[in-house]
């Protein structure tokens, strides 16, 4: 029997990026906020100091900072004909755990989505006609526009201190920035990071090919920066331990380095760590959330009553909690009805390996978000009319790390062990350069999340079940992007070049990205969205769901900046509209 705690104004499930932003915004509004976090408290000085943060085995190979599958996992199948099996260890993506969430161990690539990405269905239908899209593709407009979100992209970037160079300043195109981006209200908070040799050489090849390369926007800062909350970040030292790692330098934007130092001391905020929310409670009508029930690390059950419930867990686990709590209608792929679990999507990445002679790229001099990119093949920046697919991605030379356990490469045909292997990795480590594509993944009828009928978690709850595979549209896109990338990479002058477009079936054993999306998407129609344009549940108006969970499909960019912008957008709606008149902000 759960013991009941004193009621609070707001309970937040998960204290990562979105939980921290919402807690900050709502404590500023004078509300009492309690955050409940499944993982431990983490901080720079204690958990990843520079004395031992640079440990590939511990943090990357052994997954030190991530959720343990024994705590919670999900099952996976490629299609409804298969039996889903549990992800017993992580492979294709890495769910976060602990205070700071994925903000602790991201690469900090801080992109905005395109204006057309937010009105994707209308845009593509207008340009190419409805018949151009595959029948089973379920893309839709977001219900918000780029213009709605621009002030909040700006807020998140200024919170983080993002390093970059604006390509579109209030409608004015600027040489050296991304010519395709939507208008920015002001310049990036800090100038771009410095570029090592590989991106510089690739950018030269891109210019020779007639493109306009620009520095990737980075949350690893080019210089010290004090954000509007008064928190100071230090300059990045290009150590090459970003993704999978915490930053020991306070130079990667994370909740720890941007918000928590001002949030935690507040009288009207507290957080419980190592406590797992079991379900969102609703009253007899099912139309009102009454709080959450959680279990602490003693195995004791607690009920935290609250007037407002904010789901801020990782994308997959937001959907899991909605399903376990019976909130909203679960998606049925046979009828296409229901919204919880609908429109799960991912990201389609690929690479080109280029092997050189007499070049030294010093791959270990790196940051998770340095690099030179072009955006000519992203979204609908190029004519798809003759190509037979929709979608795209940015392509470029992004030098994230040179860590040796997973970072040593040799040309295809080299044995995987023995004297030849040893000779080859010694020869190629410094002189190999990998360029990448980072592509969109649109949503489909048969890609969804529901509850598994067989496997349960440590608490006896049904695991989340993922049904997902890559579709032809995305594989054609990956082939096309990889070919364009190779055209430019070839101009760098490699001796041997190998293209690695993404291919189906989806391989869950190999890391691709942690950009899992959708499952409780936002929109204008309760029949095809779980939350309205303010991320408020259509079914339970005092419940809001944040994170990439809301993406109706994924664009060809890293999601965090959009996740951050949506958090500020939702927070504004709560502060300025909901609190004055608690109830649905949009009438269904």
């Amino acid at each position, binding site marked *: 029997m759960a013991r009941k705690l004193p009621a609070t104004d707001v309970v937040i499930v998960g204290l990562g990026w979105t939980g921290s932003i919402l807690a900050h915004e709502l404590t500023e509004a004078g509300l009492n906020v309690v955050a409940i976090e499944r993982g431990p408290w983490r901080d720079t000085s204690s958990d990843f100091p520079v004395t031992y943060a*640079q440990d590939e085995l511990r943090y990357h190979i052994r997954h030190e900072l991530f959720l343990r599958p*024994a705590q919670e996992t999900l099952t996976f199948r*490629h299609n409804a004909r298969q039996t889903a099996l549990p992800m017993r260890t992580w492979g294709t993506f890495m769910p976060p755990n602990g205070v700071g969430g994925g903000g602790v161990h991201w690469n900090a690539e801080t992109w905005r989505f395109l204006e057309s990405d937010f009105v994707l269905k209308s845009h593509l239908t207008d340009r190419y006609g409805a018949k151009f899209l595959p029948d089973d593709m379920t893309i839709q407009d977001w219900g918000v526009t780029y213009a709605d979100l621009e002030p909040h992209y700006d807020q998140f970037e200024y919170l983080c201190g993002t390093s970059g160079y604006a390509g579109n300043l209030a409608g004015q195109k600027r040489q050296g920035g991304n010519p395709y981006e939507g208008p920015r209200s002001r310049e990036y908070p800090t100038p771009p990071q410095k570029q090592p040799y590989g991106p510089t050489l690739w950018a030269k090849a891109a210019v020779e090919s007639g493109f306009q390369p620009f520095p990737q926007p980075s949350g690893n800062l080019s210089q010290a920066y004090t954000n509007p909350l008064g928190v100071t970040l230090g300059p990045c030292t290009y150590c090459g331990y970003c993704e999978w790692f915490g930053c020991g330098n306070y130079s990667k934007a994370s909740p720890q380095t941007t918000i928590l130092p001002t949030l935690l001391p507040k009288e009207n905020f507290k957080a419980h760590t190592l406590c797992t929310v079991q379900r969102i409670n609703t009253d007899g009508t099912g139309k009102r959330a009454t709080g959450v029930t959680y279990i602490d690390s003693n195995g004791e059950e607690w009920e935290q009553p609250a007037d407002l419930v904010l789901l801020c867990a990782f994308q997959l686990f937001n959907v899991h909690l909605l399903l376990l709590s019976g909130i909203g209608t679960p998606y049925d792929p046979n009828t296409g009805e229901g919204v919880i679990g609908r429109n799960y999507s991912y990201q389609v990445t690929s690479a080109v390996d280029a092997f050189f002679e007499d*070049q030294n790229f010093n791959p270990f001099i790196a940051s998770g978000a340095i690099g030179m990119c072009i955006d000519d093949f992203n979204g609908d920046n190029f004519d798809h009319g003759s190509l037979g697919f929709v979608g795209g991605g940015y392509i470029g030379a992004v030098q994230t790390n040179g860590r040796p356990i997973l970072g040593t490469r040799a040309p295809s045909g080299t044995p995987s062990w023995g004297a030849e292997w040893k000779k080859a990795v010694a020869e190629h480590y410094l002189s190999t350069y990998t360029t990448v594509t980072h592509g969109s993944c649109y949503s489909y009828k048969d890609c969804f999340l529901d509850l598994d009928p067989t496997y349960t978690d440590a608490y006896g709850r049904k695991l989340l079940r993922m049904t997902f595979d890559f579709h032809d549209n995305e594989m054609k896109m990956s082939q096309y992007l990889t070919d364009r990338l190779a055209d430019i990479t070839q101009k760098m002058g490699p001796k041997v070049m190998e293209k690695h477009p993404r291919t189906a079936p989806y391989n869950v054993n190999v890391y691709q990205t942690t950009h899992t999306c959708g499952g409780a998407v936002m929109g204008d129609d309760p029949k095809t969205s779980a939350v309205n344009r303010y991320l408020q549940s259509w079914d339970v108006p005092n419940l809001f769901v944040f994170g990439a969970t809301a993406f109706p499909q994924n664009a060809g960019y890293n999601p965090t900046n959009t996740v951050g912008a949506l958090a500020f957008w939702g927070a504004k709606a709560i502060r300025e509209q909901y609190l004055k008149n608690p109830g649905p902000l949009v009438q269904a």
Partner: protein
Amino acid sequence: MTKRTDAVVTRRRALLAGAAAAGFLGLFTRGNAIELRGMPAWDPLSGPPPDIVKPGPWQFFTAEEGTAVEALVDRLIPPDPKWAGGKDAGCAVYIDRQLAGPFGRSAGLYMRPPFDEQATDRGPQSPFTPAQRYRRSLADLDEHCKGAFAGKSFAQIPDAEKDKLLSGLESGAVTLKHNTGRGFFELLLQNTKEGFFADPAYGGNRDMVGWRMIGFPGARYDYRDWIERHNETYPRPPVAISGAPQWTPRQG
């Protein structure tokens, strides 16, 4: 000098354990959940540094297993005139210590049944821990060798035969008793490369041989002086988490 109070370290270790495998229902004897009110105080040196592997007897392997694994890693990464092989790089010691620790017992992984071991396209589904897989596969390998090579163990057969056998395991042409050949080969190869390239703190990569071989400067944390020195060889030797040989004064 590292100076720290045991009380602080013990508390941190308990927290870490809470974060790791034991951090879910049923395995706790005491609670580690904390309520954060205000910024937690910064305890200097309160973090959990890696446990530095010390030389000494095998912690997981039997003497026979240890001999076999030393021979195996020395063929997967053979010695050459310039760079040590897997054995002298400490890869077997690395694997031994990993198997004696959380990795060996699949700590933190989802190990609930049912197990569909036939499925290969939905992630690893073995019910066996790495420690169990090594123990069983090394016994099977030994049995195979003794049958095929007149009573000789893997370590006793000629290098050419060792390589032939390893190629057979890799391709699936040679299977072992419990049908573990290829899976075991892949696990062993992955662990051997980890041992060759991981920080020496874990018992392998002795004298940072793996890093020196490829030109990786190790656990350095600041390359601001070199990021714009394009196509120029980085001049400084590698360092490890526990330092570098030149930092340690020699006795006498």
